[in-house]
């Protein structure tokens, strides 16, 4: 048995980690609002190298030269925040990135989702967005033939493809009129998820990258859904030419997941949790570093707060060093 009791502790920030907390488009160092206009912002001057955190109703700037973006509104010619979050600026456009928010998608995003409902010719998928996304029967690859026509019998056996509870990786294809996302799995890299475990992190921590499918050196595959849903699984060699289309919808895990694989998967999973706990952006590089850092600890100790903190710290330092 393994149990430990702790007192709550105040949150400690990871030193030197600011590079990882930035939005990817631009560093917050660029954040320079003209000094003349800072008076309005409750006297707290915006310093170049600090995060500018605002609360709803707080005036960001009263310079009329700025344009309002997401998370802001204009009142008395001042740009005011409408959410609690961090100020972002692109040229003259000011927006506020909320600290906690549901996933807001863009076309082309890779997401991981869970089927919540099977409806007429469509599935509803939980993607941590404001409403369930839709996966149309016509947006999946049907088994037996690469681009077979949808048949009536398919409509009657939709559960043999995806059932309530199934996890899928898919791509955002379009938006519906009501703002719901339409997904598709018409690629062999998308489809049902197997051989692993599911982790959920705040969506904001997953950045848009060239690829969201990673095979780590430790023999673990990671799919980083942009909606904050992450799938960590045993490595399956993919040969896109020779995939049996029948197997795409199988529920069976592969037989040869070794205890070593499981340990690695658990370790990677815990690393992701440790990083998310510290609000650090998650990508394959930092996961690999965190994994390296975690190897000095026993797997079952990785649930401990201090060890998680240590792993996250070490991983960020490693990334900084690499960049530096």
């Amino acid at each position, binding site marked *: *048995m*393994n*149990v*430990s*009791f*702790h*007192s*709550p*502790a*105040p*949150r400690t920030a990871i030193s030197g980690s600011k590079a990882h907390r930035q939005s990817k488009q631009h560093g917050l160092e660029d954040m320079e609002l003209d000094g003349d206009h800072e008076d309005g912002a409750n006297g707290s001057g915006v310093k170049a190298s600090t995060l500018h955190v605002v609360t709803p109703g707080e005036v960001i700037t009263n310079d009329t030269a700025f344009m309002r973006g997401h998370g802001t509104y204009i009142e008395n010619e001042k740009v005011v925040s409408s959410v609690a979050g961090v100020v972002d600026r692109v040229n003259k456009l000011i927006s506020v990135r909320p600290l906690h928010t549901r996933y807001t998608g863009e076309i082309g995003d890779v997401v991981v989702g*869970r*089927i*919540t409902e099977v409806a007429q010719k469509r599935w509803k998928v939980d993607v941590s967005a404001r409403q369930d996304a839709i996966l149309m029967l016509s947006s999946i690859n049907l088994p037996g033939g690469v681009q077979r026509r949808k048949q009536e019998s398919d409509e009657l056996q939709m559960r043999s493809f995806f*059932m*309530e*509870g*199934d*996890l899928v990786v898919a791509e955002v294809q379009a938006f519906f009129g009501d703002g719901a996302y339409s997904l598709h799995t018409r690629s062999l890299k998308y489809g*049902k*998820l*197997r*051989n*692993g*475990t*599911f982790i959920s992190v705040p969506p904001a921590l997953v950045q848009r990258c060239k690829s969201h499918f990673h095979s780590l050196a430790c023999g673990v595959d990671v799919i980083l859904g942009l909606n904050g849903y992450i799938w960590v699984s045993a490595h399956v060699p993919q040969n896109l030419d020779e995939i049996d289309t029948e197997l795409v919808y199988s*529920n*069976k*895990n592969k037989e040869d*997941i070794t*205890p070593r694989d*499981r*340990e690695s*998967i*658990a*370790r990677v*999973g*815990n690393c992701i*949790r440790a990083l998310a706990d510290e609000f650090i952006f998650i990508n394959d590089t930092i996961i690999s570093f965190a994994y390296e850092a975690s190897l000095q600890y026993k*797997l*079952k100790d*990785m*649930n*401990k*707060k201090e060890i998680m903190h240590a792993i996250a710290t070490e991983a960020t330092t490693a990334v900084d060093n690499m960049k530096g």
Partner: protein
Amino acid sequence: MPSLISPSERDYILKGIECNIRADGRQRPDYREVILETGVISQTSGSARVRLAGGTDVLVSVKADIGPVLVDPETGEGADKGQIICNVECAPSASQQFEGRGADELNNELTQMMTRFLSHNTTTLSTPSSTTPSSTGAPNNNGAGGINLSKLCIIPGEQCWILYVDALVLDYGGNLVDAVFMGTRAAIFDTRIPKTEVQDLGDGNFDFEVLDDAEDTEVVEGREDMPICITLNKIGARHIVDASPLEELCTEAKLVVAVNRSGELCGLQKGQDGGIEPSLLLEMIQFGKTLGQTLIKQLDAKIKAEAEADTIKRQNGQPVVKLGFFAQ
């Protein structure tokens, strides 16, 4: 609290438990880290907040109030006893499933379980008449709940202390029962009841006064003998403790084992919709008992350490600052 799980996730969890590597790297008998703080709500007689790393967050408060004793008309039982009234409530914000009336069944299950395990009255379940008649001098002094209810009586037949134990589930991350009972134990340990002074007015009439002195308080007697609960989740042929929400979805049957520090079993309850072979059941009971005793020791050590730290601070004139809800 997810309500759905895919067949492959289920299979992965099941096989992982089989080879003693759970999805988050723990072994079968491993608990998550428990974060505990007592005295977090100043308006109560005692309180505690328990969190299991990764989700579950329970706030337990104990409020001592004065009320009339509850007497059974048939046996006359209860005239010299105080009462414990338990309530467990899952905040709707803890999970989407708890919205509206979604938590009603769970609230009721946990409330009834807590009442049954903590109450002195070993057969609260049955008609109120079935307590041990005190006149016969039957041997159970402190019942399974441990707490000495007779000490809570102020004037026999009239007034007594009623301890309202309220557990509020703020966040759901699996293994609610264990967290609720750990929190309850910590909150009862934190509880101080004012002393009372009873005056005999003659003619069988009594009056009493509650002493207003903050220093002149009593602890709840018998608190050491309160049970805590270990929930064992049977998944496949094995069982684990402190299940995560996804593991709970794979659970065929769970067994809640209530145990006190001397290793006596104070309650058992099966949950979920599966069965257990009798031999495995006995093994699980034994396992829960051993585990529970260890858990109580460590929990008590932690509660004691915190209480001592607070006392030292008070003696040194330092303010006792609780992190409360600003903590991580």
